């Protein structure tokens, strides 16, 4: 449902709630009782649920993540004109949905992964508003990047399973799959965002394409 339709429904419910606040005596009649049940129980919960769903979907968008000033360099890192930059190569070649680029790699593909990702996001909000903000290049992941997030897409793909580097040593591929050898470990795909070096690299585009505009 479009955001504007939800807003209209929420405001309509608010107006009805206002009518009950001003005229509670209308609940003496049976139709008033039905109205009260709808306005004070059904509609608020329905609005809360669809609003929450809308907010959750919106919080997955690339523009949502990049709307914090501190995240701007990370957005810029998606535009680096170098295929060795992991995040940029994924974003520019649509290996991840461009409008959900951050979420696709930084969510947790396990049970309650989305919920855990959102709780992690609340920690970001806490730090952003209530603590001393770190420099963008000093931001670290809460925990080491789990290969599970990469394997969610790459497992079974020919380029991954038959890749020359992945098969140079017979122990490499099993170690990657067991998460004992990180995909982003040194010497492998270790150039990810590199926000500290952005002033030294060429950009593919200066601004993000329109594809990641929010609804």
């Amino acid at each position: 449902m479009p955001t504007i339709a939800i807003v209209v429904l929420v405001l309509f419910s608010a107006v009805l709630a206002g009518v009950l606040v001003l005229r509670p005596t209308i609940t003496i009649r049976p139709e008033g009782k039905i109205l009260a049940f709808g306005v004070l129980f059904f509609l608020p919960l329905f609005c809360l649920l669809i609003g929450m769903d809308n907010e959750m979907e919106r919080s997955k968008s690339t523009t949502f993540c990049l709307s914090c000033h501190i995240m701007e360099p990370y957005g810029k890192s998606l535009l680096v004109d170098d295929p060795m930059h992991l995040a940029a190569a994924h974003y520019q070649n649509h290996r991840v949905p461009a409008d959900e680029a951050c979420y696709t790699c930084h969510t947790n593909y396990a049970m309650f992964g989305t919920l855990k990702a959102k709780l992690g996001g609340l920690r970001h909000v806490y730090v952003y508003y209530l603590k001393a903000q770190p420099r963008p290049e000093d931001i670290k992941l809460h925990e080491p990047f789990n290969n599970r997030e990469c394997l969610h897409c790459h497992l079974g793909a020919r380029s991954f399973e038959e890749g020359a580097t992945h098969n140079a040593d017979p122990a490499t591929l099993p170690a990657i799959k067991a998460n004992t050898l990180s995909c982003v470990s040194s010497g492998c795909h270790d150039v990810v965002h590199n926000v500290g070096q952005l002033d030294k690299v060429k950009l593919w585009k200066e601004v993000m394409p329109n594809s990641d505009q929010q609804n």
Partner: protein
Amino acid sequence: MTSKIEQRLRISGTLILLGLLVEAICLLWSRPIAFVVFVSLGGLLTGVGVLLFLYSLVTIDQAPKEPL
């Protein structure tokens, strides 16, 4: 003079009204803090309002001609 149930309906309705207004503002305000305000303040006000309404229903006096 308003009855107890009318007072509770007014409080419940006011809380829900405020909660819904907070939700509407947050839906139009596309910032990460809006998500937090939507869940914490909007959800809290609406939730408390609905619970108070339900509490009013189960503790209502059965006197005739009372609202609800």
